[in-house]
């Protein structure tokens, strides 16, 4: 609208006195696409072609012929167990991240806590969700590693030896605990706006109709929040599934999860078959792709309640 007003004003004034405009304007139309060329070039060269290379490679035999053998080989031995461990790890940390993050966000938004807590919590969540990777592994090693703060405290002051209890930070349980440090804040960041979207009128209406607090949650709030919850769960799942650095710094190459297996494969072809490596990476894309598709689909569904 502003644009039109300005052009009319210009056309009425003395500034625009060139009737030639119609010609070049028609020629300009396809030229608009040129403005997107740098971006398209970048995306094709450094995002789309590399991915396609992996995808096609997964369906090729070493001599270039089409084959499904690589994909089939994913379902054998250590590769299948790596996928299984990775999926369990991602499911567990996504579930716990969702539960704890939801509890904390609900406490701050709906639980009647003082207002000043909200802003620091969100800021901290922004920091913590970005504090992943190698330093995070160090932080957990220094806390509940073999000589970490809590380990030593429990052993010397309370006489509890974590190792005797079967706890080892460099294991599935330890890695899950470490992942929670960025999963919970991510949940808080995403679910807080959704909780803000719960209108007070809905709660009042439910109460007027005689609903208990539990009934309100079961029949009103949770169904409304459900797309956001499930969507965030999918996002957290993908987030854990693709993470490399934390696991590598914590356990080295020993824990059998897909990202670490792929890491070792890229470094030194441990599978002894480059095309099996492509298939391994392709499997990762498929799984994170499905999780993200669920997230994006559910987020668009949940957004209509947030208006």
């Amino acid at each position, binding site marked *: 609208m502003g644009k039109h007003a*300005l052009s009319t004003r*210009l056309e009425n004034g003395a500034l625009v006195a060139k009737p030639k405009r119609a010609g070049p304007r028609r020629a300009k139309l396809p030229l*608009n*696409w040129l*403005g*997107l060329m*740098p971006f398209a070039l970048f*995306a094709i060269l*450094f*995002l789309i*072609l*590399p*991915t396609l*290379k*992996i995808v096609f490679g997964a369906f090729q035999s070493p001599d270039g012929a089409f084959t499904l053998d690589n994909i089939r080989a994913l379902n054998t031995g250590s590769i299948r167990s790596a996928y299984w461990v990775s999926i369990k790890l991602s499911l567990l940390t996504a579930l716990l991240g969702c539960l*704890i*993050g939801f*509890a*904390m966000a*609900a*406490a*701050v938004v*709906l*639980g*009647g806590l003082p207002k000043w*807590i909200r802003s620091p919590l969100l*800021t*901290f969540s*922004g*920091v*913590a969700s*970005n504090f992943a*990777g*190698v*330093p995070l592994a*160090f*932080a957990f*090693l*220094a806390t509940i590693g073999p000589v*970490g*703060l809590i380990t030593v405290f429990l052993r010397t002051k309370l006489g509890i030896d974590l190792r005797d209890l079967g706890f080892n930070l460099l294991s599935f349980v330890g890695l899950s605990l470490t992942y929670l*440090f960025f999963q*919970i*804040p991510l949940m808080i960041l995403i679910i807080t706006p959704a909780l803000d979207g719960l209108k007070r009128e809905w709660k009042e209406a439910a109460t007027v109709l005689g609903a208990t607090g539990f009934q309100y949650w079961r029949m009103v709030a949770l169904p409304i929040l459900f797309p956001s919850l499930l969507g965030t769960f999918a996002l957290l799942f*993908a987030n854990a*599934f*693709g993470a*490399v*650095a934390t696991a590598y710094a914590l356990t*080295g190459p020993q824990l059998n999860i897909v*990202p670490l297996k*792929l*890491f070792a494969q*890229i*470094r030194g072809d441990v599978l002894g078959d480059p095309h099996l*490596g492509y298939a391994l*990476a392709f499997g990762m*894309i498929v799984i*994170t792709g499905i999780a*993200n598709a669920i997230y994006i689909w559910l987020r668009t569904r949940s957004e209509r309640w947030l208006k």
Partner: protein
Amino acid sequence: MTRIWSWGALLIGALIFALPLIGMTEFSLKMRRGVYSFDAYAKVLGDPRFQETFGYSVLMALFTILFGVLLIVPTAYWVRLKMPRARPFIEFVTLLPLVIPAIVIVFGYIRLYNTSSWLPLTGTAMGTNILLMFGYATLALPYMYRSVDTGLRTIDVATLTEAAQSLGAGWITILGRVILPNVMVAVLSGAFLTFAIVIGEFTMAALLDRPAFGPYLQQLGANRAYEPAALAVISFGITWACMGLIQLITRFSKHTKAQR
């Protein structure tokens, strides 16, 4: 009753967050036996490898930000001004780096740009640096684009462009002196987030074999006891600073807008 539950949930959560941070800080101070000291920090900061790798990563982050701004601002501007139909497509592409794990992207780079390929970027150190920068730009793409696009939404792109054009400005002048200053806050937010992502990034740098800060951290962690904790504290400080700066400039800009 609800309030007690709320405090409980918050305190348990706060404990989960606080303990690792306390743990790493305490551990980083314990290098000298029996007393707290900054020995580990002194040792880390004095390590020439630390200075080299940290300097390298800072430089990479700055180049990534520069490239990201030069690529994203004109693109997002052009999409808003001339190509609104291309929007869903562009947004989809910018979300892809969240879907495809970084390790898969860099795997594709290694296969696509190796020494025997049509564009042998990994053949030279400089070429690999450039490839790594493009990789970082890809990782930052979703955040940078979202940030700039949100910034552009708050200004009237079409009117500003016509006003500038009627005063005789060319495209570069419009972008550099009209659009960019108007979305500066959004650009800076994206830039700080990019910095936080690039500075500690491990996977891409390790697999492309570049001397970046992330791989250095990992190597040190495998060989030393106290220095890694000190580095974790420093990294946390950097992440915190980046996020704090984003909040600060956002608040600052709201303040100036309210005055108008």
